[in-house]
Protein backbone atom coordinates (compact mmCIF):
# COMPACT_ATOMS: atom_id res chain seq x y z
CA UNK A 1 0.00 0.00 0.00
CA UNK A 2 1.04 3.60 -0.39
CA UNK A 3 3.24 4.78 2.49
CA UNK A 4 1.40 8.10 2.90
CA UNK A 5 -1.90 6.26 3.10
CA UNK A 6 -0.49 4.05 5.87
CA UNK A 7 0.65 7.10 7.81
CA UNK A 8 -2.73 8.82 7.49
CA UNK A 9 -4.54 5.70 8.64
CA UNK A 10 -2.08 5.33 11.54
CA UNK A 11 -2.65 8.86 12.80
CA UNK A 12 -6.43 8.62 12.54
CA UNK A 13 -6.51 5.22 14.23
CA UNK A 14 -4.19 6.45 17.00
CA UNK A 15 -6.61 9.31 17.68
CA UNK A 16 -9.58 6.94 17.76
CA UNK A 17 -7.71 4.47 19.95
CA UNK A 18 -6.89 7.05 22.58
CA UNK A 19 -10.31 8.70 22.35
CA UNK A 20 -12.33 5.55 22.90
CA UNK A 21 -10.03 4.31 25.65
CA UNK A 22 -10.21 7.72 27.33
CA UNK A 23 -14.02 7.67 27.35
CA UNK A 24 -14.08 4.15 28.79
CA UNK A 25 -11.45 4.86 31.45
CA UNK A 26 -13.12 8.13 32.48
CA UNK A 27 -16.51 6.44 32.85
CA UNK A 28 -14.99 3.62 34.88
CA UNK A 29 -13.01 5.93 37.13
CA UNK A 30 -16.06 8.12 37.74
CA UNK A 31 -18.12 5.10 38.68
CA UNK A 32 -15.42 3.79 41.02
CA UNK A 33 -15.01 7.16 42.73
CA UNK A 34 -18.76 7.60 43.11
CA UNK A 35 -19.08 4.17 44.71
CA UNK A 36 -16.18 4.88 47.05
CA UNK A 37 -17.78 8.18 48.09
CA UNK A 38 -21.05 6.35 48.76
CA UNK A 39 -19.18 3.84 50.89
CA UNK A 40 -17.37 6.55 52.84
CA UNK A 41 -20.61 8.43 53.42
CA UNK A 42 -22.20 5.26 54.75
CA UNK A 43 -19.24 4.23 56.88
CA UNK A 44 -16.89 7.14 57.60
CA UNK A 45 -14.73 5.15 60.01
CA UNK A 46 -13.54 2.89 57.14
CA UNK A 47 -12.27 5.88 55.20
CA UNK A 48 -8.59 4.93 55.18
CA UNK A 49 -8.94 1.42 53.84
CA UNK A 50 -11.55 2.52 51.29
CA UNK A 51 -9.21 5.24 50.03
CA UNK A 52 -6.35 2.77 49.71
CA UNK A 53 -8.44 0.31 47.72
CA UNK A 54 -9.85 3.16 45.63
CA UNK A 55 -6.35 4.36 44.67
CA UNK A 56 -5.28 0.87 43.63
CA UNK A 57 -8.47 0.40 41.65
CA UNK A 58 -8.06 3.73 39.90
CA UNK A 59 -4.47 2.81 39.03
CA UNK A 60 -5.58 -0.46 37.49
CA UNK A 61 -8.35 1.27 35.52
CA UNK A 62 -5.91 3.93 34.40
CA UNK A 63 -3.59 1.33 32.94
CA UNK A 64 -6.28 0.63 30.29
CA UNK A 65 -5.96 4.21 29.05
CA UNK A 66 -2.18 3.92 29.26
CA UNK A 67 -2.13 0.78 27.13
CA UNK A 68 -4.06 2.80 24.55
CA UNK A 69 -1.51 5.60 24.92
CA UNK A 70 1.28 3.09 24.31
CA UNK A 71 -0.44 1.80 21.17
CA UNK A 72 -0.95 5.37 19.96
CA UNK A 73 2.73 6.19 20.55
CA UNK A 74 3.75 3.08 18.65
CA UNK A 75 1.38 3.92 15.79
CA UNK A 76 2.64 7.48 15.43
CA UNK A 77 6.36 7.36 16.24
CA UNK A 78 7.62 3.81 15.75
CA UNK A 79 5.08 2.40 13.33
CA UNK A 80 6.49 -0.81 11.83
CA UNK A 81 4.30 -0.55 8.72
CA UNK A 82 5.14 3.03 7.75
CA UNK A 83 8.89 2.51 7.50
Amino acid at each position, binding site marked *: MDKVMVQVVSVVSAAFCLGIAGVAAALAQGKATASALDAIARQPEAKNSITQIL*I*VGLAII*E*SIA*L*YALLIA*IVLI*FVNPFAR
Partner: protein
Amino acid sequence: MTIEIGQHAAWHFFGLTFNSDTIISSLVVSSFILVFAVAAKFFVIKRNKHISGMQAVCELLYGFSVSISEGVMGSKGKKYSSFIASLFIFILAANVFGVLPITEIIELFFGKYFSGIPKLEAPTADINTTVALALTVFFAIHFYGVKAKGISYFKRFISPNIVFLPLNIMEELSRPLSLAVRLFGNTFGKATILLILVSLVSFPFIYPIPILALGLFIAFVQAYIFALLTTFYVASAISDGH
Protein backbone atom coordinates in the same frame (compact mmCIF):
# COMPACT_ATOMS: atom_id res chain seq x y z
CA MET B 1 9.65 24.14 16.36
CA THR B 2 10.05 20.40 16.16
CA ILE B 3 9.14 18.21 19.07
CA GLU B 4 11.21 15.09 19.47
CA ILE B 5 9.65 12.29 21.46
CA GLY B 6 11.37 9.11 22.48
CA GLN B 7 14.72 10.41 21.23
CA HIS B 8 17.63 9.83 23.56
CA ALA B 9 21.26 10.79 23.30
CA ALA B 10 22.96 7.43 23.07
CA TRP B 11 26.35 5.93 23.83
CA HIS B 12 27.52 2.88 21.94
CA PHE B 13 29.72 0.39 23.74
CA PHE B 14 30.42 -3.21 22.66
CA GLY B 15 27.63 -3.14 20.12
CA LEU B 16 25.06 -2.14 22.75
CA THR B 17 23.18 1.14 22.96
CA PHE B 18 23.01 3.05 26.23
CA ASN B 19 20.66 5.99 26.67
CA SER B 20 23.17 8.43 28.13
CA ASP B 21 20.65 10.99 29.41
CA THR B 22 18.70 8.35 31.31
CA ILE B 23 21.88 6.93 32.83
CA ILE B 24 23.11 10.38 33.87
CA SER B 25 19.77 11.38 35.41
CA SER B 26 19.46 8.03 37.24
CA LEU B 27 22.95 8.51 38.65
CA VAL B 28 22.09 12.06 39.72
CA VAL B 29 18.93 10.84 41.46
CA SER B 30 20.74 7.93 43.13
CA SER B 31 23.59 10.11 44.36
CA PHE B 32 21.08 12.64 45.70
CA ILE B 33 19.32 9.88 47.64
CA LEU B 34 22.70 8.62 48.92
CA VAL B 35 23.76 12.07 50.09
CA PHE B 36 20.36 12.62 51.69
CA ALA B 37 20.55 9.27 53.47
CA VAL B 38 24.04 9.91 54.84
CA ALA B 39 23.03 13.39 55.93
CA ALA B 40 19.90 11.94 57.55
CA LYS B 41 22.03 9.44 59.49
CA PHE B 42 24.12 12.24 60.96
CA PHE B 43 21.16 14.50 61.68
CA VAL B 44 18.85 11.92 63.18
CA ILE B 45 21.26 10.01 65.42
CA LYS B 46 22.04 13.14 67.38
CA ARG B 47 19.16 13.17 69.84
CA ASN B 48 18.52 16.73 70.82
CA LYS B 49 15.85 18.02 73.12
CA HIS B 50 13.91 19.57 70.27
CA ILE B 51 13.44 17.90 66.93
CA SER B 52 15.10 19.68 64.05
CA GLY B 53 13.34 20.23 60.75
CA MET B 54 15.60 17.78 58.94
CA GLN B 55 14.78 15.08 61.48
CA ALA B 56 11.07 15.71 61.09
CA VAL B 57 11.35 15.35 57.31
CA CYS B 58 13.35 12.14 57.64
CA GLU B 59 10.94 10.63 60.12
CA LEU B 60 7.96 11.55 57.96
CA LEU B 61 9.56 9.99 54.87
CA TYR B 62 10.67 6.87 56.70
CA GLY B 63 7.36 6.43 58.50
CA PHE B 64 5.32 6.84 55.35
CA SER B 65 7.43 4.59 53.15
CA VAL B 66 7.51 1.85 55.77
CA SER B 67 3.79 2.18 56.50
CA ILE B 68 3.00 1.24 52.88
CA SER B 69 4.08 -2.35 53.40
CA GLU B 70 3.28 -2.66 57.08
CA GLY B 71 -0.19 -1.20 56.65
CA VAL B 72 -1.13 -4.00 54.27
CA MET B 73 0.80 -6.98 55.64
CA GLY B 74 0.96 -6.06 59.32
CA SER B 75 3.95 -7.28 61.27
CA LYS B 76 4.81 -9.71 58.45
CA GLY B 77 5.59 -6.72 56.28
CA LYS B 78 8.66 -5.81 58.28
CA LYS B 79 10.82 -8.19 56.26
CA TYR B 80 9.80 -6.61 52.97
CA SER B 81 9.50 -2.99 54.03
CA SER B 82 13.10 -2.11 53.13
CA PHE B 83 12.64 -3.30 49.53
CA ILE B 84 9.31 -1.54 49.08
CA ALA B 85 10.45 1.64 50.82
CA SER B 86 13.53 1.83 48.58
CA LEU B 87 11.35 1.43 45.50
CA PHE B 88 9.04 4.18 46.74
CA ILE B 89 11.85 6.60 47.57
CA PHE B 90 13.72 6.02 44.30
CA ILE B 91 10.60 6.45 42.14
CA LEU B 92 9.50 9.52 44.11
CA ALA B 93 12.92 11.15 43.73
CA ALA B 94 13.10 10.23 40.05
CA ASN B 95 9.64 11.63 39.32
CA VAL B 96 10.34 14.84 41.24
CA PHE B 97 13.62 15.20 39.34
CA GLY B 98 11.56 15.35 36.14
CA VAL B 99 9.49 18.23 37.50
CA LEU B 100 12.48 20.32 38.60
CA PRO B 101 13.87 22.48 35.76
CA ILE B 102 17.51 21.70 36.64
CA THR B 103 19.02 21.52 33.15
CA GLU B 104 17.06 24.58 32.03
CA ILE B 105 18.57 26.60 34.90
CA ILE B 106 22.07 25.34 34.07
CA GLU B 107 21.55 26.27 30.45
CA LEU B 108 20.21 29.71 31.41
CA PHE B 109 23.28 30.64 33.44
CA PHE B 110 26.09 28.65 31.83
CA GLY B 111 24.70 28.22 28.32
CA LYS B 112 27.14 30.76 26.86
CA TYR B 113 30.16 28.82 28.16
CA PHE B 114 29.09 25.31 27.25
CA SER B 115 27.05 24.20 24.28
CA GLY B 116 25.11 21.03 23.83
CA ILE B 117 24.03 20.49 27.42
CA PRO B 118 21.82 17.38 27.30
CA LYS B 119 18.19 17.84 28.31
CA LEU B 120 17.68 15.62 31.35
CA GLU B 121 14.21 14.19 31.71
CA ALA B 122 13.03 12.11 34.64
CA PRO B 123 14.66 8.66 34.57
CA THR B 124 11.17 7.18 34.69
CA ALA B 125 10.22 8.96 31.43
CA ASP B 126 12.33 6.32 29.66
CA ILE B 127 10.59 2.97 29.30
CA ASN B 128 13.89 1.12 29.92
CA THR B 129 14.00 2.35 33.52
CA THR B 130 10.42 1.42 34.29
CA VAL B 131 10.78 -2.02 32.68
CA ALA B 132 13.91 -2.59 34.77
CA LEU B 133 12.04 -1.63 37.95
CA ALA B 134 9.09 -3.82 37.02
CA LEU B 135 11.34 -6.81 36.26
CA THR B 136 13.03 -6.34 39.63
CA VAL B 137 9.62 -6.50 41.26
CA PHE B 138 8.64 -9.51 39.15
CA PHE B 139 11.66 -11.56 40.22
CA ALA B 140 11.45 -10.31 43.81
CA ILE B 141 7.85 -11.53 44.12
CA HIS B 142 8.76 -15.07 43.10
CA PHE B 143 11.93 -15.02 45.19
CA TYR B 144 9.99 -13.98 48.29
CA GLY B 145 7.25 -16.49 47.52
CA VAL B 146 9.66 -19.41 47.19
CA LYS B 147 11.58 -18.26 50.25
CA ALA B 148 8.44 -18.05 52.37
CA LYS B 149 6.65 -21.20 51.21
CA GLY B 150 9.23 -23.42 49.60
CA ILE B 151 8.32 -25.60 46.65
CA SER B 152 4.61 -25.42 47.50
CA TYR B 153 4.69 -21.85 46.22
CA PHE B 154 4.26 -23.17 42.68
CA LYS B 155 0.91 -24.70 43.63
CA ARG B 156 -0.65 -21.28 43.10
CA PHE B 157 -0.13 -21.63 39.35
CA ILE B 158 -2.50 -24.58 39.25
CA SER B 159 -4.51 -23.11 42.09
CA PRO B 160 -8.14 -24.13 41.58
CA ASN B 161 -7.37 -26.61 38.85
CA ILE B 162 -4.76 -27.51 36.23
CA VAL B 163 -7.00 -25.92 33.57
CA PHE B 164 -6.21 -22.47 34.98
CA LEU B 165 -2.45 -22.78 34.37
CA PRO B 166 -2.35 -20.56 31.23
CA LEU B 167 -4.59 -17.97 32.89
CA ASN B 168 -2.40 -17.83 35.98
CA ILE B 169 0.77 -17.50 33.91
CA MET B 170 -0.84 -14.71 31.90
CA GLU B 171 -1.80 -12.94 35.12
CA GLU B 172 1.74 -13.18 36.42
CA LEU B 173 3.16 -11.82 33.16
CA SER B 174 0.67 -8.96 32.94
CA ARG B 175 1.77 -7.60 36.32
CA PRO B 176 5.23 -6.30 35.34
CA LEU B 177 3.85 -5.09 32.02
CA SER B 178 1.17 -2.98 33.68
CA LEU B 179 3.57 -1.70 36.36
CA ALA B 180 6.08 -0.58 33.75
CA VAL B 181 3.58 0.91 31.33
CA ARG B 182 1.69 2.78 34.07
CA LEU B 183 4.75 4.52 35.46
CA PHE B 184 6.18 5.25 32.02
CA GLY B 185 2.88 6.49 30.59
CA ASN B 186 2.17 8.91 33.40
CA THR B 187 5.65 10.45 33.56
CA PHE B 188 6.05 10.56 29.80
CA GLY B 189 2.55 11.95 29.28
CA LYS B 190 3.25 14.78 31.71
CA ALA B 191 6.55 15.56 30.00
CA THR B 192 4.90 15.56 26.56
CA ILE B 193 2.05 17.84 27.64
CA LEU B 194 4.60 20.25 29.10
CA LEU B 195 6.69 20.19 25.92
CA ILE B 196 3.68 20.88 23.70
CA LEU B 197 2.40 23.67 26.00
CA VAL B 198 5.81 25.36 26.11
CA SER B 199 6.18 25.17 22.34
CA LEU B 200 2.85 26.97 21.83
CA VAL B 201 3.88 30.35 23.24
CA SER B 202 7.02 32.42 22.80
CA PHE B 203 7.47 33.39 26.47
CA PRO B 204 6.74 30.24 28.48
CA PHE B 205 7.21 31.18 32.12
CA ILE B 206 3.96 31.38 34.08
CA TYR B 207 1.66 29.30 32.04
CA PRO B 208 3.14 25.77 32.52
CA ILE B 209 2.95 26.18 36.32
CA PRO B 210 -0.41 24.33 36.73
CA ILE B 211 0.99 21.40 34.74
CA LEU B 212 4.08 21.42 36.96
CA ALA B 213 1.87 21.31 40.06
CA LEU B 214 -0.07 18.43 38.52
CA GLY B 215 3.29 16.79 37.77
CA LEU B 216 4.30 16.94 41.44
CA PHE B 217 0.99 15.33 42.41
CA ILE B 218 1.38 12.63 39.75
CA ALA B 219 4.97 12.02 40.90
CA PHE B 220 3.81 11.24 44.42
CA VAL B 221 0.73 9.21 43.44
CA GLN B 222 2.60 7.05 40.92
CA ALA B 223 5.38 6.25 43.38
CA TYR B 224 2.77 5.38 46.00
CA ILE B 225 0.81 3.18 43.59
CA PHE B 226 3.93 1.36 42.42
CA ALA B 227 4.93 0.59 46.01
CA LEU B 228 1.39 -0.34 47.04
CA LEU B 229 0.87 -2.71 44.10
CA THR B 230 4.24 -4.31 44.81
CA THR B 231 3.09 -4.80 48.39
CA PHE B 232 -0.12 -6.46 47.24
CA TYR B 233 1.77 -8.77 44.90
CA VAL B 234 4.24 -9.75 47.61
CA ALA B 235 1.40 -10.24 50.08
CA SER B 236 -0.44 -12.52 47.66
CA ALA B 237 2.77 -14.46 46.99
CA ILE B 238 3.51 -15.19 50.64
CA SER B 239 -0.08 -15.80 51.75
CA ASP B 240 -1.49 -19.29 52.18
CA GLY B 241 -4.25 -19.86 49.66
CA HIS B 242 -6.51 -17.24 48.15
